[in-house]
C-alpha cells in the first residue's frame, strides 16, 4: 500500500460529518419531494455515501468530477454548497444551474463539477475530453468520473475505457456498483459482474473495494490517484455499494427483498464509521449530537435559501441555448 490514510480523530470525524451531511440532505429531499417542493426524477444517494466521500478525499481543487444522475452525494462531497443545490431542485434561479437542470443535472463550474448526467454512460466520453484538454494544455490535473455498474453495459463504456487507456488519459473511473440498474440485478445484465476486471482487457489498472467503508474507499482512491498522477494512465475503481432507498421516488422495489435491504443496512457506512470512532474514543455522544445539530441547521438554511429563491423569469427561457461567449 503506497497511499497512506492517517485516520486521526479530525479526519475520522470529517468523513463522518460529510456522510451525515449527505444522508440528512437526502432525507430532506425525500420529504420535500413528497411535499411537492421537488419534482421530476429524484434519485437519492443513501447507502452510497462512503463512495463519494472517500473518493473526494483523494482529489484536489484542480481536478474535475463527472457525476451521474444520482449525484447529490458526489456534489455535496465535492463541496458544492447545499443552498444552491437545494434551490436547483426547487427550480429556482438561485440554483446552481438556475433551475434548468434539477436533481439530475448539477453543474458547478467553480468546483469543477461537470454534471449531473442522466444518460447512463454519457459522462465517460466527456471525462476523456476533459482529461485530454488538461494534458494538451499542460495541466497536472485529473478527472474522477463516476458511473454505475449499469453504464458498463453501454457501448460508451467500452469505447471510453479503450480510448482512455490508448491515449493514456488521466481519468479515475469510479464505478459505483450498487447491484441494480434500476431494477435489473447486475447478474442478469453483465457477463462479468466483477466490473473492475474489465480494466485488464484495456491494459488498465483497476481494483474493487468495499464501497460501504469510507476509509477503504479513500485508501483505494488515493492509491489510484497516485498511480494516475505518476504514470498518467487511467484507473478503474469499482466500489461495491448499495442504495438503501428505491431507484427513484416512484419505485415499489419489487426486484429486491426487504431482507436483502436490511442485511445491507447492517453495513451502513455511517454506522460503521461512527461505531469505529466511538470504540477508538474519537467520538463522544455530545460530539455526534453537535454534528447532527450542525447538519440539521445547514440543511434548514439551505431549504430556507431555496424557499426564498425566485423563479427564473420566463423571458430568459431561451438564454444560454446558444452562448454569446465561452465562460472563462
Amino acid at each position, binding site marked *: 500500500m503506497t497511499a497512506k490514510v492517517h485516520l486521526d480523530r479530525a479526519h475520522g470525524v470529517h468523513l463522518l460529518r460529510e456522510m451525515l451531511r449527505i444522508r440528512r440532505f437526502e432525507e430532506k429531499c425525500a420529504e420535500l419531494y413528497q411535499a411537492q417542493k421537488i419534482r421530476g426524477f429524484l434519485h437519492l444517494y443513501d447507502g452510497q455515501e462512503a463512495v463519494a466521500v472517500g473518493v473526494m478525499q483523494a482529489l484536489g481543487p484542480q481536478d*474535475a468530477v463527472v457525476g451521474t444522475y444520482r449525484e447529490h452525494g458526489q456534489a455535496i462531497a465535492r463541496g458544492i454548497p447545499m443552498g444552491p443545490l437545494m434551490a436547483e431542485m426547487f427550480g429556482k434561479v438561485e*440554483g*446552481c*444551474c*438556475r*433551475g*434548468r*437542470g434539477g436533481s439530475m*443535472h448539477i*453543474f*458547478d*463550474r467553480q468546483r469543477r463539477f*461537470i*454534471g*449531473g*448526467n442522466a*444518460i447512463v454512460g*454519457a459522462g*465517460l*466520453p*466527456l*471525462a*476523456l*475530453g*476533459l*482529461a*485530454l*484538454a*488538461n494534458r*494538451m*494544455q499542460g495541466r497536472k490535473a485529473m478527472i474522477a468520473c463516476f458511473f454505475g455498474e449499469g453504464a458498463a453495459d453501454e*457501448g*460508451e463504456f467500452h*469505447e*471510453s475505457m*479503450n*480510448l482512455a487507456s*490508448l491515449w493514456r488519459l488521466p481519468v479515475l473511473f469510479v464505478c459505483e456498483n450498487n447491484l441494480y440498474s434500476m431494477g435489473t440485478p447486475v447478474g442478469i445484465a453483465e457477463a462479468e459482474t466483477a466490473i473492475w476486471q474489465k480494466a485488464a482487457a484495456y491494459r488498465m489498472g483497476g481494483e474493487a473495494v468495499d464501497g460501504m467503508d469510507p476509509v477503504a474507499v479513500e485508501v483505494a482512491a488515493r492509491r489510484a490517484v497516485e498511480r494516475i498522477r505518476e504514470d498518467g494512465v487511467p484507473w478503474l475503481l469499482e466500489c461495491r455499494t448499495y442504495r438503501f432507498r428505491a431507484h427513484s421516488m416512484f419505485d415499489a422495489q419489487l426486484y429486491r427483498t426487504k431482507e436483502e435491504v436490511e442485511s445491507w443496512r447492517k453495513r451502513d457506512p455511517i454506522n460503521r464509521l461512527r461505531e469505529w470512532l466511538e470504540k477508538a474514543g474519537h467520538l463522544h455522544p455530545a460530539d455526534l449530537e453537535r454534528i447532527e445539530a450542525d447538519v440539521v441547521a445547514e440543511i434548514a438554511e439551505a431549504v430556507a435559501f431555496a424557499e426564498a429563491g425566485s423563479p427564473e423569469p420566463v423571458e430568459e427561457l431561451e*438564454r*444560454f*441555448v*446558444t*452562448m*454569446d*461567449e*465561452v*465562460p472563462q
Partner: protein
Amino acid sequence: MSGVPARITYREACRQAIRAAILADPRVFLMGEDVGRYGGCYAVTKGLLEELGEERIRDTPLSESAFVGAGIGAAMAGMRPIVEVMTCNFSLLALDQIVNNAATIPHMSGGQFAVPLVLRMATGAGRQLAAQHSHSLEGWFAHIPGLRILAPATVEDARHMLAPALADPNPVLIFEHIMLYNMEGELDPAVQGVDIAKARIRRPGRDVTLITYGGSLFKTLAAADALAVEGIQAEVIDLRVLRPLDTATIIESITRTRRVVIVDEGWRSGSLSAEVAMRIVEEAFFELDAPIRRVCSREVPIPYAAHLEQAALPQAEAIAAAARGLVRPAR
C-alpha cells in the same frame, strides 16, 4: 500566396482551412477516424499528420461516441477541437453525445459551460455507396436547439467557414457533400473570411426563387441556367446555414419573386425543406402567388445501382420542371 484567384478543389479548400486553423491557434486540434495516417476517408486531411504531428492530428479508434464526447469534454475544458465523423451516417453512433450533451449542457448548466466544438462530417449520395453511406441527415440535426448547422457548397465556404465555426462558442456541425470534394472552384485571395449566419443569393432572378444548399446547389444552378434559356429568371438561394435559418433572406427574395421551389437532398417528410416551407407560410403567406413546391430525395434508402441512385436524388430536370410549373402553369 498569389493575388490572383486560385482554382482549387473543395477538398483542398477543406484541407487548407483545417491546416490554417491548427497553425493559428494552439487550442485547435483535429481528431477522427483515419484522419492521420490514412489521410482522411475522403482524403481531406492528407499530409496533415506529417506536417502537424500526432498531438494535433489524432487518429481515433472506431468509437464515434467516445471521440465525439471527448471532443465535447475538451471543448468544455478550453480546447477548440475539430472532430471529423467519417460520414453523417456514422454520426448516429454519436447522436447521444451530440444531442444529449453538446446541445444541452450550456443551457442545462445555466450558462456555466460552453461547448465550442466543430464537428465535420460528409453527407449525401452520388457515389454508389448505398444506403448506409449516402444519407443526408443534416436536416435532423437542424432540429436541435443549441447547434449551428453549416452546409458549405462552394470552395470559398469550404475554405472560410471553419474559422468562424471555431470562433463560435457553440457546437457547430459542418456537412460536406461527398460530390463536392472533387469540384474545382475559384478561391479569391481577396476574400479572407465569410459569415456563418446568412444565406446567399447565388444567382439573382425575378420569376421564382429556388432555395437549396450543399450538394444540390449546382444542380439547382444548372436548372436555373436551363430556365433562363426559356426566359424564366430563377433566383437561387444557397442557405449555407441550416440552423439557425436565415429566414430574412428567404422572405426578402420571395417578396420579389412570389414563387418558390425548395430543393433538399434530404427526404421530404419532416424535413428541412418542410421547415423552410413552413417559415415561408408563416412569414410570407400573403406574398405567395403560387403554391410552394419541393424537390427532395425519393423516400427510399439510397440504393446502390447507379440508375436507381440517380432516380432517387433531386435532379436539375425535376428542379426546372417544378419551377416552370409555377411560372408557366400548363392550362
